[in-house]
């Protein structure tokens, strides 16, 4: 049970700034997910929290106690690595009990704790095997088992599922969520998979280039992104961005069509270009104003279909979600804008509210 806080945390490797000032508060028992594109510094930030990477400046606090200069073990965190990092020369049971052994716990006691954890993770029959004799999913369970026997304050996961196949990934995702429900510990989970982020997180931290772009509940980020990066990163397929020109304080025009945005609190600069963000599911079957589009590509997924085409005089590419339909390439459909759900961004890619 622990809260965690980062205060203006920075990290440079030589002259390269990787983490450029991150402030963050994570509540007790929260499941927080760090997402962002490859190389944005997710792992580095997690390793700094773990104590595996030195902090260049700033402070890290666990339970209101500064731990910036403490060893990983003294922070009472446990970490699950992408490559599992199981000790190959030890059996599963020895792997899980290693931390306890270093603490000086007696052998029978260790065995008891390990067996309990193995029970939870359904790996009891594997306890006497070596890591090389396990499948990827089983190794992942052992790695998680090694973390839970320690009863840490904070669990850290660095892309734990990225080496698993799609089916196993979905299964493990659910199990980690279940585990969080049972243990109610604070967990931080790094992924670049936004589906994992959306489905598992209590709160998502979106990172880009060593900076936090936005923090919020999955639905908040989805419905109410602060900038174009977050809007584009969260959601699959991506949000459509259409370049529009302001024709009034709360009105923009797209391909000769006037679109009213009464939800805006601030006036637009008439004549300025903006980007209108509309998700694929808000482009069809609505009541709003419409344009016609010729279908170029169809991705039929069963109940839903994603159709790609070009919109307006400038032929801006869009993706539209259709439900319970069998669209064909070359067909023409009517695109309607659900403007109550649309978002607007300025030239600096910041949200206009």
């Amino acid at each position, binding site marked *: 049970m622990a809260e965690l806080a980062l205060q203006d945390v920075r990290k440079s490797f030589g002259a390269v700034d990787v983490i450029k000032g991150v402030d963050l508060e994570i509540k007790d028992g929260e499941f927080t997910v760090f997402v962002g594109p490859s190389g944005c510094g997710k792992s580095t930030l997690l*390793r700094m929290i*773990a*104590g*595996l990477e030195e902090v260049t400046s700033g402070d890290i606090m666990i339970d209101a106690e500064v731990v910036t200069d403490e*060893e*990983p*073990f003294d922070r009472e*965190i*446990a*970490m699950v*690595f*992408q*490559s599992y*990092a*199981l*000790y*190959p*020369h030890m059996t599963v049971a020895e792997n899980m009990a*290693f*931390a306890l052994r*270093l*603490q000086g716990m007696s052998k029978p006691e260790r065995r008891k704790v390990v067996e309990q954890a193995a029970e939870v993770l359904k790996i009891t029959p594997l306890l006497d095997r070596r890591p090389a004799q396990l499948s990827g999913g089983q190794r992942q369970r052992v790695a998680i088992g*090694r973390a839970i026997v*320690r009863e840490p304050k904070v669990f850290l996961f660095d892309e734990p599922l990225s080496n698993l196949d799609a089916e196993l990934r979905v299964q493990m995702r659910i199990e980690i969520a279940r585990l969080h429900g049972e243990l109610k510990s604070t967990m931080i989970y790094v992924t670049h998979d936004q589906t994992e982020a959306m489905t598992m997180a209590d709160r998502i931290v979106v990172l880009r280039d060593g900076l936090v772009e936005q923090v919020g509940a999955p639905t908040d980020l989805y419905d109410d992104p602060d900038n174009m990066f977050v809007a584009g990163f969260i959601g699959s397929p991506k949000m459509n961005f259409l370049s529009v020109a302001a024709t009034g304080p709360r009105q923009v025009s797209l391909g000769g069509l006037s679109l009213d945005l009464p939800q805006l609190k601030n006036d637009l600069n008439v004549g300025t270009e903006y980007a209108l963000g509309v998700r694929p599911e808000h482009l069809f079957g609505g009541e709003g104003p419409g344009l016609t589009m010729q279908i170029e590509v169809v991705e039929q997924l069963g109940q839903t279909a994603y159709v790609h085409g070009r919109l307006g005089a400038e032929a801006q590419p869009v993706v539209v979600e259709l439900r319970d339909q069998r669209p064909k390439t070359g067909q023409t459909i009517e695109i309607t804008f659900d403007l109550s759900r649309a978002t607007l961004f300025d030239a600096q890619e910041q949200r206009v509210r």
Partner: protein
Amino acid sequence: MSKPAKRDRRILWAASVPMMLLALSCVYPIYFAINNALKDRKGYILDRFGLVTDPSIENFVTAWSRARFDEYFFNSVTVTAGAVLALLLVSSLAGFALAVLRFPARKLIFGVILASLMIPVQVVLVPFYQTIVALELLNTRIGLILSYTAFFLPFSTYLMTAFYAALPRELVDAARVDGAKFLQVWWYVMLPMGKPALLTLGILNTLYCWNDVLISLLVLQDERTLMVGIAALRGEYTTNVPLLSAAIVLGAAPIVLLYVIFQRKIVAGIATGAVKG
């Protein structure tokens, strides 16, 4: 079907004839030594190359007791064992540090170690000898142990560093998260993980130390190691070849035994060196 088979067989022959000759050239000295070790001097002079007629172990007994080979043997075993242990200990620690830890001038230190690999022993013999004398290590077994350790350490350290650098870094991270201190990471993770490389080094260094004459001759002048003792059996004008043969067999026996025990690992070890080197 039959044509390619025929050609295959011809290729096989073309390869195996030179190979057999090569093998013969390796086996013959062993045969020569064992054969002559079992003759007496007269028997040897009368028939150098023929098979021994009335074999006796007289020469072995003489070498062992009268020519002080029991002492030499003991010296060799102590010094080799001591040096190999020291080499394994230091190189695995140094390899761990160089491969895993981040400290200033790490690259430079590794570079110096690599460079010292290129320096042949002969070039540094004089300063080396002066150092040994200055440290009052002349004629001590510990002096010879330290000398071997110093001379063979660069290669051992280089091999351990290369080996440890190829291991996933996350293993060390995991051990640190699990609460292992620096030396515990080494003891519980790096040492067991390094077993294949350490075994290779153990065998190679045993060979080097056991077979060395030059360094031993310099450091251990009053006493002798086995190889120096064998070398000393060669007189300026005459050599008691049967006695020398017996000594050679005695000197080679432990290494041959070691080879038989670790045969497969040695081949694998040479391959390790080949890939990393």
